[in-house]
């Protein structure tokens, strides 16, 4: 059956066999995966930026994601599972988005010339999406694979050491710029693509969406830069003890993964 379909398609008779639903489903899948990833990145940024509230806050959230408050013990593999799901979604979205990339140098040259002649903001924003998306193929994959394989290496000191002592801060800085620009443009384009939040005056609706888009970009960019600066500062302060882990006593029920010799501070969490 599959061979028959390949033969029909290969001969160029697939349109005669009825119009495929696939283009519609792929378009929907691209939109939904983009939406989920953009919303995930909002949540991710809020969780990561908890470091701005203090090491304890970030530590508490880290432990929550490791299931400590449900199981009474930390299971970093839970983080790995979540990262694996995000990685699959990320690859799925990237694959779908590739369909819209210029497929030859000639196409790239043509659309680049079109952009420079037209000087049209939404066309220029699409280029930002393409460039940041391309950058994320590498930057995002690197980050996700590190998190997938080292899920226990998340915490006030572990993350800061990775950022500073591990020399990852330039990667995270570029990733931050790429993600925040790409994600907010993606949400804006999704809204105009499907006609969401148009209101009674679609032109005014689009203007408002664009203002909101830049507001969201600015907010998350600022939050991200402050967060990265916080991790860098902790990383610098902690450089002499790089490799030690932040650790609190959680009512005498310490997670297995945390060496007691690395105890730096002790905070009693509310029951």
């Amino acid at each position: 059956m599959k061979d028959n379909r390949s033969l029909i398609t290969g001969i160029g008779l697939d349109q005669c066999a009825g119009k495929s639903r696939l283009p519609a489903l792929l378009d929907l899948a691209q939109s939904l995966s983009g939406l989920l990833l953009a919303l995930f990145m909002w949540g991710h940024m809020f969780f990561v930026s908890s470091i701005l509230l203090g090491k304890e806050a970030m530590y508490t959230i880290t432990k929550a994601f490791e299931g400590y408050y449900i199981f009474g013990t930390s299971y970093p593999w839970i983080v790995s599972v979540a990262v694996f799901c995000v990685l699959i979604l990320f690859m799925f979205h990237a694959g779908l988005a590739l369909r819209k990339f210029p497929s030859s140098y000639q196409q790239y040259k043509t659309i680049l010339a079109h952009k420079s002649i037209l000087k049209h903001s939404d066309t220029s924003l699409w280029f930002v999406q393409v460039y940041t998306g391309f950058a994320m193929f590498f930057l995002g994959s690197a980050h996700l694979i590190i998190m997938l394989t080292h899920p226990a290496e998340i915490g006030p000191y572990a993350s800061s050491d990775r950022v500073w002592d591990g020399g990852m801060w330039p990667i995270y800085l570029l990733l931050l710029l790429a993600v925040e620009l790409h994600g907010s443009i993606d949400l804006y384009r999704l809204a105009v693509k499907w006609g969401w939040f148009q209101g009674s005056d679609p032109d005014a609706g689009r203007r408002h969406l664009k203002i909101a888009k830049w507001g969201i970009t600015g907010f998350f960019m600022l939050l991200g830069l402050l967060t990265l600066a916080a991790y860098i500062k902790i990383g610098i302060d902690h450089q002499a003890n790089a490799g030690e882990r932040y650790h609190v006593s959680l009512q005498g029920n310490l997670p297995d993964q945390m060496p007691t010799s690395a105890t730096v501070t002790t905070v009693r969490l509310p029951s």
Partner: protein
Amino acid sequence: MSGVAPDAKGRTLNFQILRCNPQNEASLPRIDHFELEEASGMTLFLALNEIRDTQAPSLQFDFVCRAGICGSCGMLINGLPGLACRTLTSSLPSTITLAPLPGFELIRDLSVNTGKWMRGMSERLETWIHDQEMPKLCSMETPMEPELAEQIYELERCIECGCCIAGCGTYQMREDFVGAVGMNQIGRFRLDPRDKRDDADFYKLVGDDDGVFGCMTLLGCHDVCPKSLPLQTQIAFLRRKMLAHALK
């Protein structure tokens, strides 16, 4: 066509016009420069006629109605697609660059064959009423609700000038893309109760990556349309309807 009286305080306009004659293999694309005294109320249409009458008799460009109705005088005006007859020189800086609309067969200089492209699009998307019944020529036409007639008329205002195609990044990369003008036509016939086609029929025409699902929503079409057609809304609406059909 001359006779445009120069304004006493008019600017000197510098025109840079991309010229090429593809019928002549020796003709290479070049930019010709012209200077012209700006007159009160001068449009690009008037300016081009003045240049042709006084400086460049071989300069070729299209126009018919001079009132933004025929869609013949579409061109790139300082990079933006627009109608020469509807563009006042006073709305532009003193240096004005003119080029033919990209995406269409170039006839010569600023003249492109939008008609050939539009005919191809029309045949491909079957942009005519598909009626199962023979019209009853001797009886009254079936009445239509005024609101519906207004909606159809709103989309029917398209003059097929080609500006949306020239402003479309998707089309510039993928020449099989139907463009906003095609999707607007589908939207128009989808509204028309005299057209007996349903969404399954329309899906066959635009339900793929050369149709509505190929649109990258860059919205150049919407922003340059000289008739201010609601192309953004139309394409989004058509996308939702075609997706709903595919999910059935």
